[in-house]
């Protein structure tokens, strides 16, 4: 019983997160200006991190957690670098 609940909720959650990633990719492709694309990329890596966490719950291992931690760390750095590039025209001055 609990296995059925867990499997179905994880499947539905993964489908929701995939749809969210598709929306973010659509914003990256459509985005009229560069800041919209960066915003779509920001939402995309957050959704990918959450998808990795749901994979971790599905398989019962904590390996996926470390991948999610690395994604959240590097995604922040990349978003800040892209925002600085949009503002100043270069990243490291």
């Amino acid at each position, binding site marked *: 019983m609990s296995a059925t*609940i867990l499997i179905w909720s994880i499947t539905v959650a993964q489908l929701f*997160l995939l749809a969210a990633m598709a929306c973010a990719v659509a914003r990256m492709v459509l985005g009229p200006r*560069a800041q919209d694309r*960066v*915003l779509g990329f920001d939402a995309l890596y957050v959704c990918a991190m*959450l998808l990795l966490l749901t994979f971790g719950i599905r398989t019962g291992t904590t390996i996926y957690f470390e991948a999610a931690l690395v994604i959240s760390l590097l995604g922040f750095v990349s978003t800040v670098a892209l925002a600085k590039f949009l503002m100043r025209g270069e990243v490291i001055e």
Partner: protein
Amino acid sequence: MTHAADLPAWAALPTAFFLLLGSGLTLLGAIGLLRFGSFYERVHAPTLGTTWGAGGILIASMICFTVLQSRPALHEILIAAFVIVTTPVSLMLLARAALYRDRTENNGGVPAFEAESEGTDGEASPKSSDQKQTKGQ
């Protein structure tokens, strides 16, 4: 899926609830990101996924691993704290960069330079105003 049968029903139900809550809120935020009209409306939408979206899925993961390993699994707090700290910083930097670009390109609908106190914008304007005109997108 061997571990899913080990999880008792009183732990599987909150796990399922928080998983669906978190992923549903993330999907709502992404739909808002797709459908809002201007950038300054769009910048609010993904925060739904990074606050309760990440929070719900991390709480579900904490419940699942705490019950499975029969000891407190608290390493998800690391991701939660990091996401909560970094999301406002990155989105605020992005919004300020977008505001700066709109001001230098004289797009309508944004407050002018004088409307706000001069911080980093004031010293950045003479240096890179010529680059912004050529770059466009």
